[in-house]
């Protein structure tokens, strides 16, 4: 991982289209601004990981359960 040290209001340019800027530092919290093309999805890391995990969990189901769903208006 590339590690850069930045001060408040300094930024980082990634490629042509993505800019990340430190907007404010308040105690343990850091406000980060991100400018990126609209087709770039940006998520809080833990939210994205939770969705990944839930998708994985949703895949783990037994053929039995599917069988019981067939022909059965639950």
């Amino acid at each position: 991982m590339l590690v850069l040290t930045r001060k408040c209001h300094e930024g980082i340019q990634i490629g042509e289209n993505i800019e990340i800027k430190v907007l404010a530092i308040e105690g343990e919290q850091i406000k980060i601004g991100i400018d990126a093309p609209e087709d770039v999805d940006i998520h809080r890391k833990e939210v994205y990981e939770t969705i990944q995990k839930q998708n994985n969990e949703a895949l783990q189901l037994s053929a039995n359960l599917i069988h019981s769903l067939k022909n059965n208006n639950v």
Partner: protein
Amino acid sequence: MQLKTKYLGTVEVDPSDCIHFPAGLPGFGDETEFVLLDLPGNPIFQIFQSTKTTAIAFVVTNPHYFYQDYTFTLEDHIVKSLAIEHERDVVVLSIVTLKDPFEKSTLNLQAPVIINSRTKMGRQYILNDDAFPIRAPIATVATQSEKGEA
């Protein structure tokens, strides 16, 4: 075309029914094409099957069967990226985490699958607020009516 599915054996699929997910799904970035398959005898749930990987198949449902007041606003860039022109073209599905017993199953309301039925483009959209849980309990019509009678 013939498609080998995880739960329904080999089925015939019309290539025009394939739905494209250019970014894949979170955790499954390589799965960029899916089809929706009906479950025989069950109108509530469908199978959301990857056309590339047989083992990747989710159970999905229309969340409004279970949560009538489930609404959210699609951000402009999502509307644009799916080339959505009319609300009536939009299909919203929730991925079901099926459990045994069934009553313990949950719906992912935080990250619905959004499909433009006209252009056959889709994506899993992560709602950036906590209004809707990732594990919303499934409350079946059957159990509700049982409770109603009790």
